[in-house]
């Protein structure tokens, strides 16, 4: 599903430049649930953003579902993101003046679906994350766990090939973290390819594979025995 080869990325800081990724190679098959681990500043988010086409690598090859991702302009990147990728952020990033349902329906709007279909699909996904009764609530009326579940529903609504989650449990307590990870496992079991950035080993262990970054290179890449949430 995902194939990256020799990904390099550096940030310019004034005159000097900071080499963040120094040759990353990963292959991720369809249906995998991969945790990306590493200490703060190790480049986890940078890697995920490159995979999410929010950022571009300086060097290297990126193939998504056998499509070579190159020469991205903003418009094309937006279309690919809309079609292939779903995002879940640590800080939820829901639009605060839109109801849960409208938030979930938003990527469908950019897909050009008609309103009826959007509403119906969005409601389906809200129900899937157990928030069918909360569709008309604003984000401010939801708990952190509920917000993240709305965000997951939103990421799924456009039926992406890959779900990218950057510390989805970073802002949640352990009980709600487990709920959210349970949901992610459930979605993964239905066949969705998912990448989860985390620096908590407990969360990483709920995935099927752990990739550990250190100083811009892959320190370790191993399959683990998944800790299932009931």
């Amino acid at each position, binding site marked *: 599903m995902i194939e990256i080869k020799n990904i390099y990325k550096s940030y310019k800081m004034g005159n000097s430049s900071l080499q963040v990724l120094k040759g990353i190679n990963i292959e991720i098959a369809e249906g995998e649930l991969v945790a990306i681990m590493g200490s703060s500043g190790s480049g986890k988010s940078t890697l995920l953003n490159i995979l999410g086409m*929010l950022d571009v690598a300086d060097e290297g090859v990126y193939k998504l579902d056998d499509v070579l991702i190159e020469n991205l302009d*903003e*418009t094309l990147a*937006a279309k690919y993101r809309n*079609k292939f990728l779903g995002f879940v952020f640590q800080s939820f990033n829901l639009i605060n003046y839109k109801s849960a349902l409208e938030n979930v329906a938003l990527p469908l*709007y950019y897909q050009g679906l008609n309103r009826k279909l959007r509403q119906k699909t969005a409601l389906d996904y809200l129900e899937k994350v157990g928030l069918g009764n909360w569709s008309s609530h604003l984000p401010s009326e939801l708990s952190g766990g509920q917000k993240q579940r709305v965000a997951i529903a939103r990421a799924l609504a456009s039926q992406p090939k890959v779900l990218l989650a950057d510390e989805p449990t970073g802002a949640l307590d352990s009980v709600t973290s487990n709920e959210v990870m349970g949901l992610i496992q459930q979605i993964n079991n239905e066949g969705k390819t998912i990448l989860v950035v985390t620096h908590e080993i407990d969360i990483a262990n709920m995935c099927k594979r752990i990739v550990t970054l250190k100083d811009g290179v892959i320190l370790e890449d191993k399959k683990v025995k998944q800790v299932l949430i009931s």
Partner: protein
Amino acid sequence: MNSLKIIFDWDTWQEIFGSIAKNKTRTIITVIGVLWGIFIYISLSGSAKGLDNGFERQFENIAMNSMFIWAARTSIPYSGFKVGRSPQLKIQNATTLKQQIPEIQFIAPRNAKGVFGSIPAQVVRKNKSKPYNIYGDFPVYTKIATKKIYDNGRFINDEDIKYERKVCVIGERTQLELFEPDEDPVGQYVRIDDVYFKVIGVHKFIQGGGFETDGDIFIPFETYRKLYNTGDDVDWFTIAAYDYADAVAVEKKVKQTLKRIHRVSPEDERAFGAFNIGEVFTKIMGFAKGMTFLSLVVGLATIFAGVIGIGNILMISVNERTKELGVRRALGATPGEVRMQIVLESVFLTTIAGIFGIILGSFMLAAINLFTIDKTDFPYTNPTVPIPLVLGALLIMVTLGTLIGLIPAQRAVSIKPIDALREE
């Protein structure tokens, strides 16, 4: 999605309503800026139009390109004559003037009793008696100054002149003062300076016709001549030039010709007097045009300031919404779609503001009209803004709204989504 489809897509507008409704205070304050602008524009240019109409009404019963010419006293000795001589206008001068000055459309010699210091005539009807001004007129006079005659009456005609008929057209006030309220004066007789005249019409008095009043009595020029023994003398000429002619130039030519006929020095500026309505009218209309132009400039400048305000607020709003726009782009909004949304927000706000401004401005004009409608002496009539000007204002606002919206729109897409998302 192409851009036309975006504009006509209900969902686009829902997105825009959503983000506009999100911050009502911001929206209202923004809207007020432009609303104020268009309000000023509409009320100012409407008022200017009202003033324009008002001035025009003041002159509606006299030809725009007309003038009065009379003889005064010479101020330069010439061909054996001393200073201070009073040339006497003659009826024959009218023919000469008409022949020599092709720009003259109509020329009406007039005589009058009761104006310019002469004593008015005593007019008697049964036991009632009052002094009134008497004018000796040709029918052509009505070609220059409209005389509205009440039903079943008429003005002096060529036959009256030819047969020196003793007929008269009286004024509204004359009727009121000499006749009983239920009496029809037409066909009745009045005694003007001891001669019986048959009333042939009552003229409706219209404000603004120079020195004429609602009591004036018009009689045929020839009858007047007989009655007062004026011979060929004429008190003054009322002259109308063709529309294409320049009234001031015609006045000059007329004076020049009169000077030649009456052997007055060509340099003598005082020998003949003139009141040039064309000139006055041009000046007043120039003033009204200036007012219209000024109101246009002030109005447009105010609108412009309002639109700048919208741009400013949208700029702030775009900065506030950096993260939201980042999220939208992560979810698949293309830069074009983001830009379009901001521009449409701008256009929507300006248009809404514009429409409300037009409505308020119209109310204002209606109110002003209500207060001035029965003041006929106040030069202000029917204040309106021509539809093209209103549509033009709306078009300008949509255009300005688009242009000004492009700035925040460009700013919104100039931030990379990754940076927008990082924003806290």
